[in-house]
């Protein structure tokens, strides 16, 4: 992992930055202000009673905007025929008003009740990215603390113990900031599991302790994942509790289960409490993985953080942010979920929806989920590298997989490997067949996402696909097809990528819709439209 790996990510990161620089003028602060039809290019502007000041977004991408006005008196504003009272309680102070422009082109009109001096007026374009992801970073001190954490880790990296305590203290501090009670509960639980771990090593082979410990993990997961609302109601003020539970909890528990089984199989040497805590609460992978193993995590700690590591880390973070902010949220989100987008076209009347819309919606939904999730993984991997750890990759071009088995070995790889180690292999050895483990794994993964009928259907869909591929691979091993002409192999290669993509896309009918009847109708119509297209 030397220079090649740096160039591999550095060039796309530079390209991503260039694209953002080129796109930036198109999406920000692009508006025109007119007064009675004439363009206003300087302030202050005196608006007499009845006069109209119009602020028009030029960018066709302006979806959500904030209009800032400094005026000497209250103004009335009009948008899409509706009246808003645009009131500044204090004269000559900035008043901000946020509105969503649902049309591609939009703006707002202001009418003065009395003669008003408008000192300043402007419009900031706010996108979905800023509503959720980037805005959060900008808004609070999180971004600054992450930079401080990286600096602290760099200063202390030469000492494993000191740098790991820095990481532990910062993670616990972050969790405490989110919710004190929950953090105390979580850290106590992790500590108890660590104490149990010493009793389930292969030397002692305490199977009952292992079962007890695993059951407690599953109970802990169910408690927070499925009785979340009930728990919330216990607390007077839940604060930002939602950030940790339920998703973050799943990742804690998954790492805890894996470590316990590794202890039981004697696959890991004894580790100290500091290393264990650092692995479980590592800041970069804390919210959404990738799910590393404790031995891999500790073995892949960098001896020193070189310039290559810093370049690699920053490049991966840039690529991740680009995938999330530009490709997923700026392009695909709008196409799919904006008013009038594909979601609206298929969700409300699934029986009457155009068949091609259903195919496009589910295919783009798969691309959106891929970009969104792989972006988080890129950021986590890049941030880990900056903190001195080389953690496992999570995606390896799954959308180009030639069958659904290969797809799952390239999609969320760290979870797939976890399932392989801890569910698939034990169930396969127990049942001596490879169909049952596929169903068990997919049911666990599906119901881990949500205990609902659509997710159950999702699990059955993928398990059946995996079983079919297993059967075909067993019936027609690769060595039997080696004699086929090259052109047949190439055509089949492309066709198999398309089939796998569509198979994976169709399952998104179950992930995008909580209503099972809508999901089933769209799933059925997706395949029906493809079959009618082919024949």
């Amino acid at each position, binding site marked *: 992992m030397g220079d090649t790996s740096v160039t591999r990510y550095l060039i796309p990161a530079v390209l991503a930055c260039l694209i953002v620089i080129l796109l930036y003028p198109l999406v920000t602060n692009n508006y025109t202000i007119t007064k009675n039809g004439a363009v206003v290019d300087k302030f202050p502007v005196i608006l007499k009673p009845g006069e109209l000041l119009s602020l028009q977004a030029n960018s066709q991408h302006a979806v959500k905007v904030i209009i800032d006005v400094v005026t000497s008196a209250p103004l009335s504003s009009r948008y899409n025929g509706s009246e808003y009272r645009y009131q500044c309680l204090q004269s000559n102070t900035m008043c901000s008003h946020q509105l969503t422009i649902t049309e591609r082109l939009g703006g707002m009109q202001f009418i003065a009740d009395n003669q008003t001096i408008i000192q300043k007026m402007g419009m900031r374009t706010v996108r979905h990215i800023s509503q959720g992801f980037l805005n959060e970073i900008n808004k609070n001190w999180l971004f600054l603390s992450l930079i401080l954490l990286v600096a602290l880790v760099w200063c202390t990296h030469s000492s494993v113990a000191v740098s790991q305590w820095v990481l532990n203290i910062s993670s616990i501090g972050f969790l405490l900031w989110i919710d004190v009670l929950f953090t105390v509960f979580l850290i106590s639980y992790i500590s108890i599991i660590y104490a149990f771990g010493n009793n389930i090593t292969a030397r002692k082979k305490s*199977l009952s302790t*292992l079962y007890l410990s695993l059951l407690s993990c599953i109970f802990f997961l169910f408690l927070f994942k499925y009785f979340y609302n009930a728990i919330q109601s216990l607390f007077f003020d839940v604060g930002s509790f939602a950030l940790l539970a339920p998703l973050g909890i799943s990742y804690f528990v998954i790492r805890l289960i894996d470590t316990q*089984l590794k202890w*039981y*199989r004697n*696959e890991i040497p004894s580790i100290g409490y500091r290393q264990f805590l650092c692995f479980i609460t590592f800041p970069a992978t804390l919210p959404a993985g990738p799910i590393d193993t404790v031995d891999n995590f500790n073995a892949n700690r960098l001896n020193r953080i070189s310039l290559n590591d810093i370049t690699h880390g920053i490049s991966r973070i840039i690529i991740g942010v680009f995938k999330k902010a530009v490709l997923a949220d700026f392009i695909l989100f709008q196409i799919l979920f904006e008013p009038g987008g594909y979601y609206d076209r298929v969700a409300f009347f699934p029986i009457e929806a155009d068949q091609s819309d259903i195919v496009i919606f589910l295919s783009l939904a798969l691309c959106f989920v891929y970009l969104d999730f792989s972006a988080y993984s890129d950021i986590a991997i890049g941030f880990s590298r900056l903190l001195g750890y080389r953690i496992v990759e999570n995606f390896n071009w799954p959308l180009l997989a030639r069958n659904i088995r290969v797809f799952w070995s390239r999609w969320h790889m760290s979870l797939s490997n976890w399932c*392989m*180690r801890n569910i*698939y*292999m*034990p*169930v*396969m*050895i*127990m049942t*001596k*067949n*490879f169909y049952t483990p596929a169903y068990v794994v997919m049911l666990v993964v599906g119901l881990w996402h949500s205990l609902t009928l659509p997710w159950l259907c999702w699990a059955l869909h993928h398990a059946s696909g995996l079983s079919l591929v*297993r059967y075909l*691979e*067993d019936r027609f*091993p690769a*060595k039997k097809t080696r004699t086929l002409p090259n052109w047949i192999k190439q055509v089949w290669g492309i066709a198999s990528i398309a089939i796998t993509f569509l198979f994976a896309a169709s399952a998104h009918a179950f992930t995008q819709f909580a209503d099972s009847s809508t999901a089933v109708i769209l799933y059925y119509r997706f395949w029906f439209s493809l079959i009618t297209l082919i024949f």
Partner: protein
Amino acid sequence: MTGFSECIREYLVDEMGLETDIGDNESLFSNKLLDSIDILKLIIFLEQKFSIKFNPLDISLDVFDSISKIATAVEKRA
């Protein structure tokens, strides 16, 4: 140990189509020479041939990652 290794090698070459000169420590699963179907067949073969039993919770993929590791796992249980 050598007996176990030879028997395992013979099975892998005859039934799984692996090259005859495969090394004892060569990685089978990580190098994609075997997949989980092959592992299942191998487990069934080993349990029948040597009258042993693999505990589901006790086994990881790493145990089957080379001929020498498989031989060690069989020897432990034989």
